[in-house]
């Protein structure tokens, strides 16, 4: 996935002179996960390495976006978005509306997310739910290299702010990525696997786990349909609801803390608008309500697992 993202950046920066990248160590290491490695040689002056100043980085990116640029600002870990919350929530999300539509706000914030490498509580969070809650933002969560490239291209061609959640554990995801130009529109979920018995609506790193669960359940005669949400704002209700109507049983899953997580929003939508199709209550599989512990054994207990999805599906069907 990291190569796919780099390709997307490269190709779009060639097409569009106004795209610039800002962030900590974006030149030296190409960012902590090497996504921007090498871009500085190809686009000198357009990759701007910053001091450690998340609020300053995001605020400056926003100012540039209001004045004709397309900045891509990296906050090294989504956890540090907390240092820039005014810039994201009070400024970026609201400036177009407050100004009566006078300006586009073409900023992409790249936000590495999720558990990885035992980085513990302050480097492992999943914060989509916070940003879902703020009108004016778009929240994008690719689960594959293919989706990442296509969604990044759409982000870089749009006119509205994008919070692009890059799951650290998914950077090594490999799959076929075409050479030709393609872009994936926002608001289009993707049925990654078809099945008639249970729907799993999955986001980010839970997508591969949902597919694993499907493989484990198929020999038992339980066919799982996996719907990858891909973008949380805008959200593709139609695809999700069509699947619920087909299977009548649904699990919503992501790696966020369960309480108040994205799964709560999706589950509510399904309960409100798909009630008649449901043969069982909506189940959620998400992370334990604690900060991420350092110990590898404890981390395994906190992060939702394939086995939890398997168990939930058996309960729904049984």
């Amino acid at each position, binding site marked *: 996935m990291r190569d796919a993202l780099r390709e997307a950046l490269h190709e779009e920066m060639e097409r569009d002179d106004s795209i610039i990248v800002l962030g900590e160590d974006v030149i030296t290491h190409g960012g902590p996960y090497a996504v921007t490695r090498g871009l500085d040689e190809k686009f000198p002056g357009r990759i701007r390495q910053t001091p450690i100043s998340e609020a300053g980085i995001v605020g*400056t990116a926003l100012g540039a976006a209001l*004045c004709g640029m397309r900045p891509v600002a990296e906050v090294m870990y989504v956890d540090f978005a907390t240092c820039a919350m005014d810039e994201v929530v009070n400024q970026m999300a609201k400036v177009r509306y407050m100004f009566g539509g006078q300006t586009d706000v073409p900023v992409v914030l790249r936000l590495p997310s999720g558990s990885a490498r035992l980085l513990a509580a302050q480097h492992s969070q999943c914060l989509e739910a916070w940003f879902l809650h703020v009108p004016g933002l778009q929240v994008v969560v690719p689960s594959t290299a293919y989706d990442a490239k296509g969604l990044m291209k759409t982000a870089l061609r749009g006119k509205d702010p994008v919070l692009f959640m890059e799951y650290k554990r998914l950077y090594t995801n490999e799959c076929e990525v075409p050479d030709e130009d393609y872009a994936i529109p926002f608001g289009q979920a993707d049925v990654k696997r078809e099945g008639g018995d249970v729907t799993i609506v999955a986001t980010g790193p839970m997508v591969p786990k949902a597919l694993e669960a499907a493989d484990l359940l198929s020999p038992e005669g339980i066919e799982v349909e996996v719907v990858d949400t891909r973008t949380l704002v805008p959200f593709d209700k139609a695809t999700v609801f069509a699947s619920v109507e087909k299977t009548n049983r649904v699990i919503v899953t992501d790696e966020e803390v369960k309480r108040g997580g994205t799964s709560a929003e999706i589950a509510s939508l399904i309960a409100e608008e798909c009630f008649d199709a449901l043969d069982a209550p909506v189940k959620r599989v998400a992370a334990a309500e604690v900060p991420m512990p350092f110990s590898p054994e404890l981390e395994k207990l906190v992060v939702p697992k394939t086995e939890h999805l398997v168990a939930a599906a058996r309960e729904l069907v049984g």
Partner: protein
Amino acid sequence: MLYMYRKMIEIRQFEEAAGTLYQSGQLPGFLHLYIGEEATAVGVCVHLQDEDYITSTHRGHGHLIAKGGRRDRMMAELFARTTGYCKGKGGSMHIADKETGILGANGVVGAGIPLAAGAALSAKLRGTQQVAVSFFGDGATNQGIFHETLNLAAVWELPVVFVCENNRFGMGTPQSEHQRIEDIAVRAPSYDIPGVTVDGNDVLKVYAAADEAVTRAREGGGPTLLNCDTYRFRGHHIGDPGTSYRDREEVQEQERQRDPIRRLTEVLTEEEGVSEDELSAIEAELAKELESALEFAKNSPEPLPEDALNDLYAGSIQP
């Protein structure tokens, strides 16, 4: 000089009218008046073109008018009408005008500072001579974002001027209680940028200092911290008389001795040979124009219910 006189009168008249309207219950929301501080906005903005950028504060009407904001569209915005700059969706604290480079008043203290740096970055990358000016108060200089932005702007040598309006109070707290320094310009060397302090109520001094700072930015010399010592004659916002944390005598003394408009009037009449009649004529003309602006605002339509949901995204998604 006459231009600057006009601009200060425009601001003073607007603010006094807005204050009266608010107190008679005709304006919704909050109002933070700029009365007494006019010389800073005007002395700086006279050096700026439409293509230059400013960011402003919750106390932004002065900056907006000085930069070229129209009083009729501003008044309409205060009345929450669709003919306002923000179609009634922003209000006093969020007025913006893309056409004249006004990147908005801002309801969060200090939040405009990085936006100006970003605007300056865009100019630098485009290779133009545009500059950005960020206005903020003494209170804002304690916000983290002030420090982050000055540092970043200095490192990247951005064409931005940081204008501090030190009116000696951060809301209801005197400067002596919210920071140990008195002269805010002493913070500039921490970022290795020039820092200058002037009497912010003397429009000619502001003019001269701003000239140097704006020119420095335009010529690639990077940022300046321009500290203007001023005073607000009214409270923090309407509803705050401004006397529970300030000496009434001090306020009156400031109004008597340091009114920027009176001071320029003295210079114009005593040193520049301008007659008082000429100045009165300007005032009368502007008062009449303000009357029309007010009529325009009062007769403008209110937003429709569906307006609550539009202009959120420029792209295709609907809320």
